[in-house]
């Protein structure tokens, strides 16, 4: 990964011209995209997560990818140096890298390995990567400092940071929680890998979006005081 030397990053981000309304609009578009994807899967292809997990996940991914990468590329952190198309390219490159990391995490935590599950794992990790990595990749490109601040230290410092960090963490935590019912002997079809995990991830993503709006609202109100200090 190319490492750009960082300017004082936090100041840079606060100054990114994203208002709370824009954030709300952005999350609304992503959420609506998700809803549309589910609607398409259910009504046009008549598949759902339980009966055809891999196809459904893949379909959601296909529909959601342009939306998420598009809207986050618009709010990239340094619009002067980085064109919109370049940001989209960053986002698209970020997806396979993130998918690899997500798949590694899932397998290490016990996701089944085998021919049966390869397709499911791939589509699931693509979707996970879309929720977690693609926004950050579109906005920050390969600026390691920003990545480290968001994902390693989890210290968002600005509206865009909140918009990326909270849904991503929500997705991961939701997926982690979603794995709990899997080993139980309830004999339900949704206990199969990765159905409950996907439900958890999507729920976590939505909760993360809502929470990020809340935090942005708080942050927005507090911002003048911070600056005053």
């Amino acid at each position, binding site marked *: 990964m190319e490492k750009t030397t960082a300017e004082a990053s936090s100041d840079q981000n606060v100054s990114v011209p994203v208002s709370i309304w824009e954030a709300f609009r952005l999350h609304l578009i992503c959420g609506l995209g998700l809803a549309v994807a589910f609607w398409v899967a259910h009504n046009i292809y008549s598949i759902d997560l339980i009966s055809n997990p891999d196809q459904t996940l893949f379909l959601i991914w296909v529909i959601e990818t342009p939306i998420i990468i598009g809207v986050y590329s618009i709010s990239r952190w340094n619009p002067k140096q980085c064109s919109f198309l370049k940001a989209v390219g960053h986002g698209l490159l970020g997806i396979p890298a993130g998918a690899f990391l997500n798949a590694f995490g899932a397998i290490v935590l016990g996701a089944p390995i085998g021919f049966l599950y390869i397709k499911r794992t791939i589509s699931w990790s693509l979707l996970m990567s879309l929720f977690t990595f693609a926004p950050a990749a579109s906005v920050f490109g390969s600026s390691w400092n920003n990545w480290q601040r968001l994902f390693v230290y989890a210290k968002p410092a600005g509206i865009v940071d909140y918009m990326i960090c909270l849904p991503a963490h929500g997705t991961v935590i939701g997926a982690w929680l979603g794995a709990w019912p899997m080993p*139980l002997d309830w004999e339900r079809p949704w206990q199969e890998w990765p159905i409950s995990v996907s439900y958890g991830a999507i729920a976590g993503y939505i909760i993360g979006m809502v929470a990020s709006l809340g935090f942005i609202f708080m942050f927005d109100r507090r911002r003048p005081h911070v600056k005053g200090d």
Partner: protein
Amino acid sequence: MSYLTCTRLTTWTLAAVLLQIFGLSFFLYGFFPVKPALSGVSGPESYRSPMCEPVKDLEEKILPPDRLRSLYKEMSGIPLSFDRLILMVVDGLPAEFVLGKGDQPPTKVMLEAMPYTQSLLSSGMAVGYHAKAAPPTVTMPRLKAIVSGAIGGFLDVAFNFNTQALLDDNIVGQFYNISWKMVMHGDETWLKLFPGFFTRHDGVSSFYVKDTIEVDHNVSRHLKTELIADDWNLLILHYLGLDHVGHIGGRNSILMSPKLKEMDEVVKMIHMNKILPQDDPHGQTLLVLVSDHGMTGNGNHGGSSYDETDSLAVFIGLRSKVPDYASATNNAAFQVDIAPTLALLFGVPIPKNNIGVLIEGTFASLTDDQWLRALELNSWQLLRLLQAQLPHLSQGLPCKDPTVEQYSQISKCSGSAELKFRCLISNAAALHDAWRLNGARGFRNNSRDDFRGTVAAYYEFLRTASEWLSRRATDKPLDLLAFGVITMFVSCLILFWLCKEVYNKQKQCFPNLYRSNYTMHSDESFVSIAILIYIFSMGSSSIVEEEQYIWHFMTSTLYLIFFRRSIQSLPAGQTPNLLNVSNGQKCSNYSHTCSIIFVLICGRVLRGWHQGGVNWTHLPDISKWLEQAGLHSIIYIQIASVVLVISLGSWALYLLRPKSAFVPVVHISFVISGILVLLHNIEHQEHTLITSNYSTTSIAQIIYATISMSVITIVIASPWLMPISLYKTRSTSRFHLMSSHSIDIHKRTPELGLRGAAYLIGWTYIVFWCLIQLLLQKPINAVPIILVLLQILASMYYFSMPELHHKQWVEVAAFYFLGMAGHFGLGNSNTLATIDVAGAFIGVSSHSTLLAGIIMFVITYASPLLIFLSMVMLISMKDTSYILDSQNAEMGHLLQMMIGFPCLVPLCLNSIMLTTFTIILLLMRNHLFVWSVFSPKYLYVCATTVSVYVGVSVVAVTAVYLCNVFVFRERMFNPKGNNRQTNQW
């Protein structure tokens, strides 16, 4: 902050541990009452009074079955009423369906569903009883109660390991002894209980709960031929369909009345064919229709509610007629009463551990004399059982002497249990004797009243004794249990407080490690959350069955969090305060991060090695795949593992910094033991068909001897032989002639030697423990052992990274997690079935329960104990020099810093788990799975506690010994020079 010295810390820890042991033993004693069961089977001696001196009857024991049968008949004095018995068990049939509840007859639907049985009841041909069953109301223990009359405890099931055969005295066994021919059709539980007893059988499995038709058809299809056949004396029919109907649709399922009708047809067929024809050439037949348990409204069972315990016993074909419908249906008894009743009706002794009482209406065809004799036999049997629990009971009871008049001694009975029983039985015996005497003298004028009085006296004794015995078997003394739980809880709190104290002290000592931390780090909070999640999930029986998933999941998550934290310091060049990090350090940071990935991958392989647990064991895993690939690949892997352990050990010795002449000796002992283990494994592989081979046994014994000798020698010798290079440092310090610098070096050297010795001993423990495991474990488990070892080494390497500010308790907790995940990765589970019993006899030439038990423990707790042994090495990895540099460097302080957390954290974690699971077990004591899931798990929890004690004491003893030796050596070398320092040590 209170001042906590090393001595006080030790005292408090020991007190907490002792408190825990006390609480645990109180709880165990209360929860699993050790029922002093009588071993052996009843023989002819049961027809003699237990009050008299036992008669030697050695020759009677080896009687052939026919002689035995006639001897029983002769001694009992009760004529046989029947020759053949049909025991028809309808699984899960509530007595309410047939007999009604209380005074009310059954509902109209039920009456119509079983027309023939109802007509038998109303015409007086049959008599029915509500036979109250004892919890747990599940099939296997209920069948045991029906045939043996005893309420089993849990421990006798647990200690039977894998055999399910009923070893207690029971009527089926008694029938077998008098060479009855027995036939069984139905639930295969009977075949498990009585392997080889039945001449013909067709077992059906109750596994397919959805099937309600075929299970019963498979029984009924034999009925016609069996009813014609004349070779059997006992026919057992066990119908499972009704229980399945209940499980599917509940008590009021629409399938219920067709199923009852089907059962009614069976009763009708048997009655028409076998009981009605009075001139059957094969003798009289008795049909006993029983159910093992009832069911709740939605068809479940297992608990102790009225609906579940209300089981049925109907006797069809008794000689006497019952006057009316109400007296044929409105009777109460206990399920255990069936065994003695059937035993005496068919002329065999009552089973030894029976606590049942003869059912009153079933002996109506006997004369008064015979009936009293039957009650007397029952009383004698119960008296024998009581004597086993109350050893002084028989003192003062007269041996029967029919010439003495004892009317005057009849008295009200009260007082302690012993007094009461003594009084009740002597009352009954006196009345009986008087009645008998009167009969002999020919006074029978008021005999009816005397008879009734005697029967009442007998029943008073029988009922009191039976109730007392059954309470002993099932009741749990709640105050004892509560006391145990509270004690454990207090000890848990003490351990937690001690941890906190040590934490505070460390915070004082290493301010740089513990700075800036008012908020917890993600890893610390995760460990706390993981423990909380674990505690709550243990309340669910399905998670207890699949506990391995929790540990794997938690451990991997914890290491993923470590991974995240290690990235924090990864490309550290950009963080301002660490700008001047050299390139080499950066590289080592990368390798530390890679070590975490290595731990994670090892963990994943470990998880895939055995598909553990209960529900998913059939899924493919690596061990099954390897076993399919053939034995040869496994043995090669095993050999490779031994070689790997030895080479790891050699490499570690090579890395040892203060070299000593002693190290090659250690190396040689590693290699010799390794070669011996290899030899044994190859030998064992060649003679895999012969169960106990002489040469393998002797090799194993040589290995045990070699390993224990080497460990003892190395542990004792290494601190003495480790160079502390005191002279050298002194000389350098003289050269320098400077105070501050030279003293600094001078202080460090013994500390280096101490760490070197700890490192050496830690490695010795690890290598020898792994070798022992490679010897004892199944060959397929060689790789998991290696994986656990590699995980330990990789995490040790990761924790040695200086920039990481993991607190020591998190490191120890991570080790504990690794140990538990490894425990399940070795194929262990929470059922007793996964204990490797075969491995426990490696190298044991004579049968010794203690030795085999110890080896079994070593095999089962391989991974947690390996973790504890490696703690010694973990101590050596910690840089303790700053403790010595600081002002308050004394030995107690050093010890506290060194082994405070490695000992306290496992104790504390384990005590949290023990206490919570004890509370869960207490809350779940009426749960359906309390005996099948929670109690085995509790035994495992107790064994884990023992393993923690063993491991912690090894760590503590080693560290204390090391410190003492080094202090002593320091004094030897420095008799006068540095008095101030020596005192501080």
